[in-house]
C-alpha cells in the first residue's frame, strides 16, 4: 500500500472547515495523572493541553480539584467522559449528565468527548467500553442519546471511534458509515482515536487507512494516540488489545501521519492510563506528535501556495 503524499496536489486537500478553531490548540496534549500533579505545577512543561477523565473529578473536594484548578489556569483542557454509556440500550443517566454539566461549567474545557460504546446495564457499571452492533435500530438510539447529551450540556461533543474485539451478526452497516451517519444527524464532532482504528483494523482484518479516509474528517476535533498489547485469537490470528499501557507503536505513528495528511494540524492526545511512566517519557511522546503536527502545518502551507 502506498502512502499518498500530501505534497501531491491531487491528494485530498486540507478540509475546508476546521471544527476546533475555538477549541483545543493544534498541539499535543497529555492525560493528566495524579502522580504528575506536583511536577506539572512546578515545571509547567510546554504542552498544548491536558485531558482528564470526567468521572475521576466528580468528587466533592480534595487534591484532585486542588491541582486541576491550578493546572487549568495554565493549560487548555479537554474533558473526556468514560461513563455516559451512549451506546446503551437503556436510557441515559440524567443525574450523571447533570454532574457532567456542572463539571464543564466549573472548568470551562475547550473540548468534551465521549465514546461510541456502552458501559452500564441494569444499574451496573462495567468499567469497560463495550461494543454494539451497527444497524438502523442502534443508530437511532445512539443519535437520540447524543442529541440529549448536546442539548443538556449545551455544547457540541466529540464522539470517539472504539477499539473492538468482536463483531455482531446483527450489524448491517460498517463502522465508518455508522459514524458518518451519526455525525450528519446529530452535528457532533469526531474524536479520531488512531490507535483504536489500527487495533480494530487488525482485529477485524479491515484496512485502517480506508476506515479513516471514509470518515467525515472535516469534523475531527481531536486525535488520540495510545499503545496496545498483542494477543492471539482462537485461530492464532493477531488480536490487539487497547490497553493504554505501552508506548505508541510504529504502525500507529504511521497511521497518524496518514490521518494528519488528510486533516491538517489537529490537537493530539497521548493517552496513557496504565503502567504510567515518568512525565518526561510522556512529554517526549508528545514532542514526537508535535513534530508530525508541525510537518502537517508545513505541508498545508505548501498546498495553499
Amino acid at each position, binding site marked *: 500500500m502506498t502512502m499518498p503524499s500530501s505534497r501531491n496536489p491531487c491528494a485530498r486537500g486540507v478540509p475546508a472547515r476546521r471544527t476546533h478553531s475555538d477549541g483545543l490548540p493544534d498541539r499535543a496534549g497529555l492525560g493528566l495523572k495524579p502522580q504528575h500533579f506536583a511536577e506539572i505545577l512546578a515545571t509547567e512543561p510546554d504542552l498544548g493541553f491536558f485531558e482528564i477523565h470526567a468521572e475521576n473529578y466528580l468528587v466533592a473536594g*480534595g487534591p484532585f480539584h486542588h491541582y486541576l484548578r491550578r493546572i487549568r489556569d495554565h493549560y487548555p483542557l479537554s474533558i473526556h467522559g468514560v461513563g455516559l454509556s451512549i451506546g446503551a440500550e437503556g436510557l441515559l443517566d440524567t443525574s450523571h449528565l447533570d454532574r457532567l454539566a456542572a463539571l464543564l461549567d466549573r472548568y470551562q474545557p475547550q473540548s468534551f468527548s465521549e465514546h461510541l460504546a456502552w458501559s452500564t446495564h441494569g444499574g451496573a457499571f462495567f468499567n469497560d467500553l463495550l461494543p454494539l452492533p451497527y444497524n438502523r435500530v442502534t443508530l437511532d438510539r445512539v443519535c437520540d442519546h447524543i442529541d440529549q447529551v448536546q442539548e443538556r450540556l449545551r455544547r457540541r461533543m466529540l464522539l470517539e471511534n472504539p477499539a473492538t474485539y468482536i463483531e455482531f*451478526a446483527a450489524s448491517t452497516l460498517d463502522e465508518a458509515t455508522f459514524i458518518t451517519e451519526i455525525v450528519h444527524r446529530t452535528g457532533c464532532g469526531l474524536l479520531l482515536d488512531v490507535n483504536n482504528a489500527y487495533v480494530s483494523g487488525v482485529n477485524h482484518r479491515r484496512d485502517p487507512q480506508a476506515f479513516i479516509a471514509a470518515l467525515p474528517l472535516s469534523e475531527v476535533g481531536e486525535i488520540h494516540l495510545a499503545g496496545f498489547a498483542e494477543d492471539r485469537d*482462537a485461530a492464532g490470528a493477531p488480536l490487539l488489545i487497547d490497553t493504554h499501557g505501552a508506548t505508541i507503536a510504529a504502525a500507529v505513528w504511521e497511521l497518524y501521519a496518514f490521518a494528519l495528511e488528510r486533516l491538517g494540524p489537529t490537537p493530539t492526545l497521548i493517552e496513557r492510563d496504565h503502567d504510567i511512566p515518568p512525565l518526561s517519557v510522556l512529554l517526549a511522546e508528545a514532542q514526537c506528535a508535535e513534530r508530525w503536527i508541525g510537518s502537517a502545518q508545513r505541508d498545508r502551507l505548501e498546498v495553499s501556495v
Partner: protein
Amino acid sequence: MSDQQLFAAALLDPDAPCPAGLTTWNGSDPARRFAIYRNNVIVSLIDALADTFPVTLELVGETFFRAMAGLFVRATPPDSVLLSGYGAGFPAFIERFEPARSVPYLADVARLEWLRVWAFHAADADPISPTRIARALADPEQLPMLCATCHPSLGILRSDYAVVSLWAAHQGHGDLTQVDPFVPESALIVRVGLDVQVLALPPGGDTLVASLVDGLPLGQAAALALVAREDFDLTAHLALLLRAGALTALTLPVETSP
C-alpha cells in the same frame, strides 16, 4: 433478555457461555475474543479495589486479595460510574468471607482504608482558626454549651483490633512484629489541606467525636465519653481535635426567643 442484558450477564459470570450473535472475520471461536471484555471488566475493578485497599492487600498477599476481590466484583459490580465510591461494601464482604477468618482484623483495616479514600475526596473546608479557638474557649462557663462542626472529611472507626497501629506499620511507622493486633483502637481519619491523617483516639475519644458529629454540645458529649471511659480527658481530646484540624467551627447554639 435483551442483547446487552445477555452480554452483561456473561461478563460477570465466568461459567456463562459466550453470548450468541458474535462473529469473527476468520470464523474463530468468538468466546476467546469475548474473554477480553470479561477480563477487562473483572481485572479493572479488582485493580480499583487494590488501589483503595493497599494495606488489606499486603496483609493477605496479592493472590489471596485478588481472588477475594474477584468474588466481590462478580457479586457486587459497581452501581455507579463514579469508581471513587466503589468498595464501600468490601469491608463487610471481607467480614463474611470465610477464608479470611484467620485474619480477624482484616475487615477493620479495610474499613480504615475506605474512610481514608472517602476523606481524600470529601468536600474542602478550613479548620477553625487559632483566633476563633481562643475566642470560643475564652469563657470557661460557655465551654460546655459549645457545639462543634466537624470537617466534612472526618470519620471515626471503633475497632476491637489495633487498626491504627497495624495500618501505620504498613506505612513504615513502627514495627509490625511489635504490634499486638488484639488491642482495641479507635481511629480518627481527617483530611487537612491535601493530606489525610490517621490518628489513634485516646480512650473515650470515639464517644466524644461521635457525639459531636451528632450535634451534642461539648458538655454533653464529654459527659457521655466519661460514662464510656472514666479516665476520659476532655482537654487532651480538644487539643488533639484542634491540632488535627478536625473542627471547622465552635459555636454557641443560636438563642431561641422565649
